[in-house]
């Protein structure tokens, strides 16, 4: 690759120039992709804490059988809001934050294609989050229907349900606008020489994820709009009393919901695909197959939705179709896991914090994937449906998988973002505490589920007590460990040692090779020429 055409001396002089405003107005009016990326990341961390507190309320109540701390209605509100906030408020915005920071830098673009739209996409989120929080304080409280918002319960809930529906609409609009921006940026703003098959895997995974978002968020919007009209405008889409069908809601929701799993997982795969080669000091093994596997996962994700609803009474042929389609996803996912392992094979490995989280991801996400295969089998799933086995499975995939990839990404790019190194010893403490406690919290839930413990209940028989006690201790340990993460990040920002342009020897994408550390406020004033 050639040296960057952009004059960094000039850019460096402008480093402190943050546009026309300063203070809070800078953040409200900013159109800079790095500022907006930072906003997304902090917002997602705050939501992660809010959703985490809700998880701890749930786990504290479940520490012992019987009703101890909260009444069942409030418990249901906690499970619902924990799910909604973690999925839509924490995980998705975190990866959009990564996209905002990284995509323009990785493809040699000056900024996102629509900078003002980017600002709006972010600032929609606090309004949506506020609606979700406000729903706790209206008559009837927040909806207690589960994050999937299944009808017909949603048709019967109080005004909190309306607030949640509007929140989902706003979150969906933010996601759609964000994905339009990301696709346009990647398609139109790549620097000369940055061909599609030269793009870093992180960019590829986000291009495919953005298409998934564009195709599925309107479906969710349609489902909740129909719920809204059922509630207030006399329609009966999902109301059996009026000739509607509650199962229709489940079909529409999961047509969105399963691709949503990959909307969360694919950017996580992208982060891991950047981290593992850097700390293996080798190029990614099987780049082209990684791209095709990502696309294959995305396409297959549209034909597996009904594996979430084997128990609604579908024909055996339907069960067989969705079972085989679901197991097919193991093939491209296996290609990815194989390629990550092959990248490490005979590499010059070192295990700094990002690599620890990446390897942790590899083990734990794969474990979650395997329990997914178990659940894909209709005969088994009918036994395990709505048990804690399912809770354990999706927390391994979505909570541990996405979170560990997120932590790997933050530790990996933090020196580039802030210009400062984090405390490596504390970072490693964060990893080991998280890895141990998260398994204490979730691994035992497999056993509770196999023994028949249903999900979304505040009370349970004595036979499940031991598993629940262990799980609650793990959850508290995991939650408290995240305060260490906050401390490590703040310490790096305030007093971290200055980082060089390329702190990781094996990192070779454009942000490391063509941009100084910290990155100038205006990333590329003229596009770099990449050879």
């Amino acid at each position, binding site marked *: 690759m050639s040296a960057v055409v952009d004059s960094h001396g000039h850019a460096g002089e402008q480093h402190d120039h943050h546009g026309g405003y300063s203070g809070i107005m800078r953040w409200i009016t900013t159109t800079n992709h790095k500022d907006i990326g930072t906003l997304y990341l902090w917002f997602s961390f705050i939501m992660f804490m809010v959703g985490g507190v809700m998880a701890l309320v749930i786990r504290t109540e479940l520490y012992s059988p019987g009703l101890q701390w909260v009444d069942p209605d409030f418990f249901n509100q906690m499970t619902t809001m924990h799910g909604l906030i973690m999925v839509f408020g924490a995980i998705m915005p975190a990866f959009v934050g990564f996209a905002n920071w990284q995509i323009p830098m990785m493809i040699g673009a000056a900024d996102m294609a*629509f900078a003002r739209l980017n600002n709006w996409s972010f600032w929609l989120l606090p309004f949506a989050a506020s609606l979700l929080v406000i729903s706790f304080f209206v008559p009837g409280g927040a909806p207690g229907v589960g994050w999937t918002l299944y009808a017909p319960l949603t048709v019967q809930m109080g005004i909190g349900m309306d607030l949640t529906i509007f929140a989902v609409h706003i979150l969906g609009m933010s996601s759609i606008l964000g994905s339009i921006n990301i696709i346009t940026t990647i398609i139109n703003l790549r620097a000369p020489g940055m061909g599609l098959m030269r793009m870093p895997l992180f960019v590829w995974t986000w291009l495919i994820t953005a298409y998934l978002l*564009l195709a599925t*968020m309107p479906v969710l919007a349609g489902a909740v*709009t*129909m719920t809204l009209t059922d509630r207030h405008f006399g329609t009966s889409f999902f109301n059996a009393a009026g000739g509607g069908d509650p199962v*229709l809601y489940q079909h529409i929701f999961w047509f969105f919901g399963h691709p949503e799993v990959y909307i969360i997982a694919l950017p996580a795969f992208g982060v891991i695909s950047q981290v593992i080669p850097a700390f293996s000091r080798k190029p990614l093994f099987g780049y082209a197959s990684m791209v095709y596997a990502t696309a294959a996962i995305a396409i297959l994700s549209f034909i597996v939705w009904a594996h979430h609803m084997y128990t609604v009474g579908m024909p055996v042929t339907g069960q067989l179709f969705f079972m085989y389609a679901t197991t097919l996803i193991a093939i491209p996912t296996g290609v990815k896991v194989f390629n990550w392992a092959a990248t490490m094979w005979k590499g010059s490995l070192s295990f700094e914090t990002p690599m620890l989280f990446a390897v942790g991801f590899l083990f734990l996400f794969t474990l979650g994937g395997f329990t997914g295969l178990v659940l894909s089998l209709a005969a088994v799933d009918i036994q395990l449906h709505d048990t804690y086995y399912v809770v354990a499975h999706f927390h391994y995939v979505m909570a541990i998988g996405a979170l560990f990839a997120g932590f790997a990404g933050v530790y990996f790019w933090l020196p580039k973002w802030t210009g400062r190194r984090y405390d490596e010893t504390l970072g490693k403490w964060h990893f080991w505490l998280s890895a141990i406690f998260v398994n204490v919290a979730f691994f035992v839930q497999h056993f509770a589920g196999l023994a028949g413990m249903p999900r979304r209940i505040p009370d349970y028989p004595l036979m499940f007590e031991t598993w629940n006690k262990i799980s609650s201790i793990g959850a508290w340990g995991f939650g408290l460990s995240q305060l260490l993460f906050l401390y490590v990040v703040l310490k790096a920002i305030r007093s971290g040692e200055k980082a060089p342009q390329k702190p990781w020897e094996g990192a070779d994408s454009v942000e490391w090779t063509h941009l100084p550390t910290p990155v100038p406020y205006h990333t590329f004033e003229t596009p770099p020429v990449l050879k």
Partner: protein
Amino acid sequence: MSRNLKTALVLASIALTTFAGIVAKYWILNGS
């Protein structure tokens, strides 16, 4: 019209059509 705007309009029309299509399928066509 810029290339970026054209791309965005195509993508936005996909999203809008999907949303309207889902609702219309079960409302106007009654799911048939």
